């Protein structure tokens, strides 16, 4: 009997706790789902996309990208001037911008940040690539920053480096061990970090000192979710206000939900299929065990021709993607390249078959030519599904695929040491295409020991490399765009990888609580994962009518169940007591 009472008590306590928490007239909060972990709040160390995005809210960069068309616009600096030899850049930090603790932002903060990275190897962990070409950084006065570079650098207005307050960071003894969690964290961005519980949530408050003016609501919470599935559910329940990175099916499921508005945006990401072109180290030693046939560009072209990109877009991405072409997604309109009529490889299995026959790979008696391995990431929906289609499409031209879906690490290992024939890959691109183009230069291949490579597809092409070098020092944007397009055309022609699709960024928000978000770019742009903080900063709350609490019924039902249990328990106990003497 005692045991039973204890059990009842335990249930009662559990249910009793399920009472609503009072949030009568609190602050206006934007709650955003994040799925990826935060590796660090220290902007010098944080390498995850999620961390970068939050750092962007905390710290302004020297320059920013406009919300509507992503052109370079005012960040901490409002003016910039290269010297005629393009080796010296002078930035001006205007007066009046303040840190969140009220101190003024000066050129010295900028110089401190950059010099820290130049002097401390650890500080270069996250963003070191931006300063490798820097010779020196100086702040002759409070307003002026002078950066000297070793060689002309075309990306000087795309330095995605959070500028930190010198008066806080000069006291930091070791960057490596600094978690940057002294709340509130002093910053210059539109929001101030106030609380962070790893694996649970991140809380930020609107920065009242923000130089563009404070955001239109009070707090911004990032709530950690295990997977986008849970996040979507929470959105429909009204537990959170904004979700991104939805799967197509999830996006579809929200179509008729009242109070929810969906945003189908052009994404910065593309997915590609790597075709091992005969991987080599920087010194030209063969590496890995890619299939020999793939060294032949005709074979690679034939493979690309046998892949039905439209089918992938329709069936795998359920239409929420655009057919792949060049390395730069269409969201960056001017850099994006589409093949012309005669360059275009249409889906044509017959032609692919013929090309393979011509390349000396006739079908054998069993109808196959040669088998290939396809490596993908297990648990990534796109890889799991697209591999089925590729298996069939390449099977149709006599190339059976051995699909191996592996862990992230194993996939990276396979692509790094080139133990693949075909592999899925994908990149998120920046406003400036330099990074994604640079992945395919010969210099990115690993050294003799097989280490130190960052090559994506083991592409090494003299023509491409020349073009790359030219665009790096081409300060006329129109001409640079031309070169970038030529590079993409070359890449497309040599097919070390087939860009399969530019996936849409699928987002949704509670329009009953937030009326409007600023997208980037203005047309078909994203709210989250921007090259900026506009989406969060520009959110406008709807009328203050809070949605009805969903906890009322829970409480009532819980109470009823509890009551019923107690009654039943008491009755049973009574009856048992009464008859206890007469049983054995």
């Amino acid at each position: 009997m005692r045991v039973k009472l204890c059990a009842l008590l335990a249930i009662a306590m559990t249910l009793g706790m399920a009472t609503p928490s009072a949030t009568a007239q609190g602050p206006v909060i934007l709650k955003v789902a994040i799925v990826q972990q935060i590796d660090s709040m220290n902007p010098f160390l944080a390498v995850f996309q999620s961390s970068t995005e939050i750092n962007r809210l905390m710290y302004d960069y020297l320059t920013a990208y406009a919300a509507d068309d992503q052109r370079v616009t005012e960040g901490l600096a409002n003016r910039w001037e290269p010297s005629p030899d393009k080796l010296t850049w002078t930035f001006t930090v205007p007066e009046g911008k303040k840190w969140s603790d009220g101190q003024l932002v000066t050129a010295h903060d900028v110089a401190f940040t950059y010099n820290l990275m130049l002097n401390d190897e650890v500080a270069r962990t996250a963003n070191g690539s931006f300063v490798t070409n820097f010779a020196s950084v100086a702040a002759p006065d409070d307003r002026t920053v002078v950066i000297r570079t070793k060689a002309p650098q075309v990306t000087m207005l795309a330095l995605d480096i959070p500028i930190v307050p010198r008066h806080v960071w000069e006291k930091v003894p070791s960057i490596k061990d600094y978690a940057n969690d002294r709340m509130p964290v002093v910053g210059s961005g539109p929001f101030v970090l106030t609380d962070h519980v790893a694996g649970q949530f991140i809380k930020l408050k609107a920065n009242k000192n923000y130089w563009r003016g404070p955001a239109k609501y009070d707090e911004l919470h990032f709530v950690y979710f295990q997977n986008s599935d849970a996040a979507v559910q929470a959105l429909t329940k009204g537990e959170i206000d904004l979700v991104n990175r939805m799967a197509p099916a999830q996006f579809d499921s929200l179509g008729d939900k009242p109070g929810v508005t969906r945003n189908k945006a052009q994404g910065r990401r593309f997915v590609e299929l790597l075709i091992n072109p005969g991987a080599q180290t920087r010194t030209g030693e063969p590496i890995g065990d890619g299939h020999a046939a793939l060294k032949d560009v005709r074979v690679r072209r034939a493979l690309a021709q046998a892949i039905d990109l439209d089918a992938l877009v329709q069936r795998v991405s359920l239409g929420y993607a655009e057919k792949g072409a060049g390395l730069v997604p269409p969201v960056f309109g001017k850099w994006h390249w589409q093949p012309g009529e005669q360059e275009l490889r249409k889906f044509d299995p017959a032609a692919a078959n013929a090309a393979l026959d011509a390349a000396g790979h006739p079908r054998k008696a069993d109808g196959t030519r040669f088998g290939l391995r396809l490596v993908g990431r297990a648990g990534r929906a796109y890889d799991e599904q697209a591999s089925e289609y590729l298996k069939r499409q390449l099977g149709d031209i006599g190339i059976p695929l051995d699909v191996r879906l592996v862990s992230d690490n194993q996939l990276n290992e396979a692509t790094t040491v080139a133990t693949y024939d075909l592999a899925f890959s994908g990149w998120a691109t920046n406003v400036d295409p330099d990074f994604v183009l640079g992945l395919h230069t010969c210099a990115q291949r690993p050294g003799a020991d097989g280490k130190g490579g960052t090559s994506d597809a083991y592409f090494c092409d003299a023509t491409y490399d020349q073009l790359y070098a030219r665009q790096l020092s081409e300060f006329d944007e129109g001409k640079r765009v031309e070169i970038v397009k030529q590079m993409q055309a070359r890449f497309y022609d040599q097919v070390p990888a087939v860009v399969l699709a530019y996936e849409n960024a699928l987002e949704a928000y509670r329009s009953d609580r937030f009326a409007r978000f600023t997208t980037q770019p203005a047309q078909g742009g994203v709210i989250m994962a921007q090259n900026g903080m506009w989406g969060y900063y520009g959110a406008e709350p709807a009328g203050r009518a809070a949605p009805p609490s969903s906890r009322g019924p829970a409480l009532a039902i819980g109470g009823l169940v509890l009551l019923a249990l107690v009654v039943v328990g008491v009755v049973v106990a009574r009856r048992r007591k009464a008859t206890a003497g007469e049983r054995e």
Partner: protein
Amino acid sequence: MRLGVRLWGRLGGAALSLVMVAVLGFFLFRVVPGDPVVSMTRGRPTTAAMQAELRTQFGLDRPLHEQFWNYLTSLLRGDLGTSFTFRRPVSEVILERLGPTLLLVGTSTVIAVGLGLWLGVRAAWRRDSAFDRAATGVSLTLWAVPTFWLGMLLMMATGDLFPSRGMRDTDTAPDFVSQALDVGHHLVLPSLTLVAVVCAEYMLVMRSSLLEEMHAPYLTTARAKGLRDDLVRRRHAVPNAVLPAITLVFLRFGLVVAGAITTETVFSWPGLGLLFYDALTGPDYFLLQGLLVVTAGAVVVMNLLAELLYGVLDPRVKVV
């Protein structure tokens, strides 16, 4: 004298197990190919120098035997290495997640033990009664249910009644009562899931344990003394039968922590289980290794405690 020897034997055995756990933890995750640094930096502008720097930070540039030695010596200091994902000491990350797991597992264990033992006693005492058949049938079924699936079903079935994720809302008032109520509200579904599965096992164990004792002659003695049926059960049968069940509870507590992996994953409960799941994507080997060492270590310790406890509870066994 002999008893002391036995205690030392137990402690020694546990210590040996811990060492084996540590060694296993190291080699299991070091024999795999793959460079975690590449995974970490993927998708960002990264130079080879930056990768090398990261490798140095994580000590991955040393030869294996040196890594092993460093691992062992730092393990003795309670240092489990640095997580790739969190860029913080693994021990710190684990400690942070211990609380929620203990809350979830603790609540569930208390309820499950109470309910399971009570059901088991009742079922066994009236063997083959309708109650016994029902309770045993339900328990066997629940025992067959994959935890995660039960969680997903509960989530779908309860609709909007309970929050779908996490341990608390971010906008709850900061006072203790509201916070506690909020956590309690979040706790309902995950703990219900765990209780259902764990309780079934306790029930079955308690039942069979009591059935073993049902024909013990001392129960006849007790009846012959004129004791009421429920007194015979409470004073004589249960104290004997509950011993193996209690031991099991202790043993299970460690395993339940491991079993919470799927529950925490389904409900995004920010505990060790979820951490484990997170560590799988990547995978974050240092974190996995730390978690393996910690959970297995906890189980070893619980095991030892269970044995010692048994010695205290059961006068027949003398350990201490």
